[in-house]
């Protein structure tokens, strides 16, 4: 299937899912929970572009995500633009930060890059905690607009936005996979030295991958203030984001766009159910245990378990 066809198909699925949801679902809780799962689809897919496709692990998802969220807070206080603008700004800012960090650390081994991402997340968190304009450590309250731009309530609108973003990220991932860029990233992942020797501009590709991954995460964070209505650094930089965005692609499978989607739906829905039925801490414990379990026992994820022989990623 050509990339353009896939994109159209994704757009169609987004519209259909939204229409169905609006018509068939009466309980608003579905939209609240669904938003979180969709958000994780975006985060997992974004993480996988750098993690699964390029082979560089990122522990700082929370940092990029929060950049998007706090950029929205600032813009909301300044003049309150519509969400698509917030998403764009959040994406650009987070992308630039990713690029900057990549320039600083991508010449080193993957381990140092990974630790660098962790450092970045905490540095960003410290800045935000000390910045009173966005509420500092006390947090900030955001009021949801009374009317939604399209149909339905505001939460319906947020759900649609995140649904569209999820569709966009999946389409983007798939397009990268089946492109020259994707080939280059696979070569970098498999053997960076050999890739250089084959003429692949490894540093440039790694920077592109980092920027795209970070940008998507920032975009996922942009609508967050309107969803939670109260944002503080502890919740905005929650380690759960980092763990989940690693666990989901790992559990789903890191070689294609299908893995993060599967992992996000699987793990996301389990967590939504667990948070309600058992405690939220136990739910986090579950994620951690699953992560370790899959890393040790089934490193190729659910996809790998289901189709052990077929590991082809790109058709020639």
């Amino acid at each position: 299937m050509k990339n353009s066809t896939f994109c159209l198909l994704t757009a169609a699925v987004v519209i259909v899912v939204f229409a169905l949801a609006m018509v068939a679902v009466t309980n608003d809780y579905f939209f609240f929970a669904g938003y979180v799962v969709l958000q994780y689809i975006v985060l997992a897919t974004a993480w996988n572009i750098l993690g699964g496709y390029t082979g560089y692990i990122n522990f700082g998802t929370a940092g990029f995500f929060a950049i998007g969220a706090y950029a929205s807070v600032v813009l909301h206080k300044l003049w309150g633009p519509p969400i698509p603008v917030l998403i764009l700004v959040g994406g650009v800012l987070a992308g630039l930060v990713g690029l900057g960090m990549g320039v600083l650390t991508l010449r080193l081994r993957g381990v140092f890059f990974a630790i660098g991402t962790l450092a970045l997340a905490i540095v960003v968190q410290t800045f935000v905690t000390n910045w009173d304009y966005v509420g500092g450590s006390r947090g900030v309250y955001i009021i949801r607009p009374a009317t939604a731009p399209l149909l339905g309530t505001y939460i319906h609108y947020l759900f649609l936005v995140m649904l569209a973003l999820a569709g966009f990220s999946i389409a983007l991932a798939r397009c990268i996979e089946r492109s020259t860029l994707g080939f280059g990233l696979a070569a970098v992942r498999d053997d960076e030295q050999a890739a250089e020797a084959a003429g692949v501009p490894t540093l440039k590709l790694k920077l592109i991958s980092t920027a795209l991954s970070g940008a998507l995460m920032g975009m996922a964070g942009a609508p967050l203030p309107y969803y939670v209505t109260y944002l503080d650094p502890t919740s905005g930089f929650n380690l759960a984001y980092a763990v989940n965005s690693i666990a989901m692609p790992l559990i789903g499978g890191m070689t294609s766009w299908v893995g993060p989607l599967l992992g996000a739906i699987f793990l996301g829905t389990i967590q939504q159910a667990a948070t309600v039925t058992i405690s939220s801490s136990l739910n986090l414990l579950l994620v951690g245990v699953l992560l370790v379990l899959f890393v040790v026992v089934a490193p190729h994820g659910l996809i790998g378990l289901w189709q052990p022989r077929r590991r082809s990623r790109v058709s020639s």
Partner: protein
Amino acid sequence: MSETLLQVRGLSKHFGGFIALDDISLDIKEGERIGLIGPNGSGKSTLVNCLSGALKHDSGSVRFDGNALDGMPAYQRTRLGLARSFQLPKPFRSLTVVQNLHVPLLFTAKHRAGAHLSTAQIDARCEELLHMVALDGKARVRPRDLTQIEMRKLELARAMAAAPKLLIADEAMAGLSHSEVDDILALLVKLNQSGVTVILIEHIMRAVMSFSDRLVCLVAGRKVADGTPREVVHNPDVERAYLGE
């Protein structure tokens, strides 16, 4: 007279206190078949890494095809036409054999061709390359399912896919059987006849002797001999390095 393709002047490289390359100078003309020999640890691989850009040399200069290579990243050197194969094959494990060839074709040959390489042209080139190394039937196989010699051949094919002017073959024949060595040798000769300058790094003497127009011998990071195979092999320094005092 053929042009000087590679010009190395005073190349040095050290790791901490250890001097791996000491003031190496070398001229290689287009179309030549150079054999690079020397005992283990003499600096042959370091030289390859410095020439290809995998390592940064500490002093001296390298000029290739009229371009100064100092400070140029490895991928740009490949795009200029300087390709190398690895001593221990480093295939892209998640890609099939033919996809392994796609990488240098998409990232190097495309640039050197100047014009856009169509999918059909890429596929045709892959077929050619696979045929040249007799891996035609293995196009959709993964590297983990290849034998040792097949991986060596893939390694060479991948280097050739970059359409190089100069190919550095780093111990491509180590551990192969007599006839397998002949296969690789024939391949390199055919390559040279099609216009590619070849530097062959090898320990297998009969291969190096029969292949090379010229031999260069490195011992402990220094160039001790540079001449015809007969001259070099009878050079007292070379004899001493291989056979002891």
